[in-house]
């Protein structure tokens, strides 16, 4: 940080100038071993929605954190209204009117919406009159921008979409001029997305500038004015989204330097294959005695991809854990390849032929502190050929690792720690292990979440190949596009129950979206 830089000092009325509200020039930032941002240039006009597009690890989040004062750039300058401004801490960014809404929200769950909104401000102690004014303000913002939330509700009672609205209202209450939204749609239903986009457009029309971080191209065309593309830490280009000849394909090409289309699977026609995974009236209660999975029944056939979708937190995760034996079921049966598996016994599910790619990739599916080779034998290190007489045969393990690393195109050495791999690479390690165990059923929980487009495509292809080789695939995903492009049949979960199971050929995003809110189509 050089001395001549002036720190943000903005009063209640933002100064008005003709140039860009925010300009970042030659911003670089490195972390031990990685150059996360390399001479990034970025410009944000007043009242525009500007997308920051790039695959994972391209430096979008790092860049946005620097704008929000969470990281300090190693070099480069941020200009706000033409003034070079240092943002060493979040409060300086806030003073400049910059607010970052991160993927995991920073709200206090045990406080109400209103309390969260004033938390940390001078007026945090609320008199009755001030409280009324605050409630009125929240309701006003809600109507105006389609951000309706109940001011007296506690955060823990709210859905992820509602929490996001609280974050936005909180930023507006602090006179935000620049909103940065980091992958805001990952937790939303299609309907909630539409509502959010309408709100953002309204905000932009009232001169709020918005930086919209995403790797989903349709969203960018739906809501953004301009787009800046980051590729391996560098800003590649800035383009006008509404420009003639602009298309998702072109953007994708700019993102990767080449064009990629995601693999999809044709729905199977009139299949008479036998069932390989059968759930019958499965119910499961959580630690607090609440039923999180209720009377769920469905079957997955050999060679089929069966999708389970729903808004996050409606029991999908628990359902997967029940099938994997990681969670006890209260009643009902789970049968894998014709055999009923014991409740709460992961080993029994594995023996019956279940492979499971858990939602929690690093931490459940893989051990970040162990090497690639150790992770590849995580489920069978204690049996021949990988160990004899209680001693692990390092050579056999290494040979396996070398083979799978080349077969699955994992970028890493057998001894590299899995925790240091990129998300896509880690997922390849996980899939390599799960697919080589000759499973009867492959269950995958949000297997492409957080992966860039090319890694997503690899995962999709592996799932399709698994189905082709007569494995029954259960895909649990919140990504409707993914479910609609891969699955043969789709079950929608709402509050622990399956609302309905639809044939993929009859399903549309809208019909699934309605079912995700509990309405039967």
């Amino acid at each position: 940080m050089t001395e001549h830089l002036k720190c943000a000092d903005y009063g209640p009325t933002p100064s008005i100038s003709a140039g860009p509200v925010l300009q970042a020039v030659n911003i670089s930032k490195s972390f031990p071993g990685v150059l996360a941002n390399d001479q990034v240039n970025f410009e944000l006009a007043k009242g525009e929605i500007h997308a920051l597009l790039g695959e994972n690890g391209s430096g979008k989040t790092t860049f946005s954190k620097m704008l929000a004062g969470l990281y300090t750039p190693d070099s480069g300058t941020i200009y706000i209204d033409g003034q070079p401004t240092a943002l060493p801490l979040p409060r300086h960014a806030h003073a400049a009117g910059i607010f970052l809404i991160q993927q995991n929200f920073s709200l206090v769950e045990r406080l109400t919406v209103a309390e969260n909104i004033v938390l940390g401000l001078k007026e945090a102690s609320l008199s009755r009159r001030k409280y009324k004014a605050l409630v009125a303000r929240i309701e006003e913002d809600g109507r105006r921008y389609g951000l309706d939330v109940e001011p007296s509700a506690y955060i823990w009672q709210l859905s992820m979409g509602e929490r996001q609205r609280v974050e936005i209202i909180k930023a507006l209450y602090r006179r935000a001029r620049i909103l940065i939204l980091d992958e805001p749609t990952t937790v939303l239903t299609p309907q909630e997305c539409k509502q959010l986009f309408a709100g953002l457009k309204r905000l932009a029309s009232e001169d709020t500038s918005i930086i919209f971080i995403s790797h989903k191209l349709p969203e960018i065309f739906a809501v953004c004015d301009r787009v800046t593309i980051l590729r391996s830490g560098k800003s590649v280009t800035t383009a006008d989204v509404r420009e003639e000849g602009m298309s998702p394909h072109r953007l994708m090409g700019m993102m990767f330097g080449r064009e990629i289309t995601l693999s999809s699977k044709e729905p199977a026609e009139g299949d008479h294959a036998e069932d390989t995974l059968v759930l019958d009236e499965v119910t499961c209660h959580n630690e607090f005695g609440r039923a999180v999975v209720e009377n769920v029944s469905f079957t997955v056939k050999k060679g089929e991809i069966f999708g389970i979708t729903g808004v996050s937190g409606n029991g999908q995760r628990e359902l997967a854990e029940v099938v994997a034996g990681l969670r006890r079921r209260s009643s009902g049966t789970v049968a894998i390849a014709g055999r009923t598996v014991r409740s709460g016994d992961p080993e029994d599910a594995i023996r019956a032929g279940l492979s499971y790619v858990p939602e929690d990739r690093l931490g459940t599916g893989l051990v970040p502190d162990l090497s690639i080779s150790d992770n590849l034998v995580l489920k069978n290190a204690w049996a021949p050929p990988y160990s004899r007489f209680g001693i692990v045969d390092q050579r056999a393990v290494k040979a396996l690792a070398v083979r799978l690393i080349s077969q699955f195109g994992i970028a890493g050495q057998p001894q590299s720690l899995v925790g240091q791999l990129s998300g896509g690479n880690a997922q390849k390690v996980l899939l390599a292990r799960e697919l080589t165990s000759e499973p009867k059923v492959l269950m995958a929980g949000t297997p492409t979440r957080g992966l860039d487009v090319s890694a997503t495509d690899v995962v999709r292809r592996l799932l399709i190949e698994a189905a082709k080789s007569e494995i029954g695939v259960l895909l649990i995903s919140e990504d409707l596009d993914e479910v609609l492009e891969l699955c043969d049949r789709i079950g929608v979960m709402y509050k622990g129950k399956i609302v309905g199971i639809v044939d993929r050929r009859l399903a549309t995003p809208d019909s699934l979206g309605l079912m995700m809110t509990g309405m039967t189509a």
Partner: protein
Amino acid sequence: MIRIERRLSLKLWVRLCVPLGSLLVAFVIITLLLFLSGVGAWSTYSAMISASITSTSGLSETFVIATPIVLTGLCATMTFRMGIYNIGGEGQLYMGAMAATAVALELHGEPGYVIIIAMSVAAALAGCVWSLIPGLLRAYFSTNEILVSLMLNYVAGYFISYLIFDSRSYWRNLTSAAGQVYPIGKTIPAASWWPAPSLGGVGIPLGLMVAIVLAAVCAVCLRRSTLGFKMRTTAGSVSAARYAGLNVRRLIVVVMLISGALAGIAGAVQVGSASHALDPTGLEQVQYGYAGIIAAALGAFDPIAVFAAGLLLGAINSSGSILVGPSFPIGLTGTIEWIVLFSVISGGFLLNFRVRWRPRASGHKAGLGRGEPTVPSSSEPTPTLAGGIGISKSTQVTERGAR
């Protein structure tokens, strides 16, 4: 602002230099301290070194003291490496000592090697029993094994005190003249005293050889065996271990049993090589169980390094007891010991992290969002004690100065 960041890679020379540097720092601080307390620094050092290393009797004494510390160090290491914290080495050692004494007294007249083997087995079993309690409670009821094992240390301590001081138990010597004046334990038969074959005048206690073998076994177990693999997996992530089909509960119990057995054997060693009787006061004074935890931390939970750390602690311990005299207060020996430990452990911290200092930007003005509770998010998994002192691995652990 000061930032503490985790080092991503370590060069070998750094690994070697940091512990030596730590000892140098300790040396400087201790010299200063000795100077301030008016004790001659150089004479103290030479006395310490001769009392612990260079004289044959001193080195023999060091080995005798180091052996139980190495064993309790291994006891701590085996559990800590899995993210289970058996602090109960002390109590498990007491129970081992009690069992070993009983067996030695009972087998009076048998050949020495029979008694010694029986003592070791009995002591290991007694240690197992004592570690099984926190192990089962942890595995099946998720109770905090740190608290349970720590509390059981006191139970074991009071129990052996009761055997000698407050009862007419099997262990108590009620016949000898000395025993009638002050409560002491029965001396075990001379045949059961653990031999210490002399090597160039230095006694190499049998217990030390056992400790060497056990350290090697532990090292192989942790690095090469399937048990070690399971422990590493569980330490890395309990949910991953469960997911991989491991019976984590059984694993916790097994590891606690191994750990307890090691501490129990330390008790047998102490009875066989040093006290030759159940001696509650002596055991409580030396606190080898706790010293073992320090040795384990010092050796970064690597069995071979723990062995070396145990020897270092043994040397410091034995030199300390020699130094104490009219001109050298006992407090000072303790101070010296702890300065050495503190330096080496801090050095271990610096080995895994680095502290970066950056001048803060000047002229801040607090604006609207004052005291906003936004902190850099760190979604990385919780660390384990393996390979250093467990502190968050996030690149931004602490930010100070600019609050």
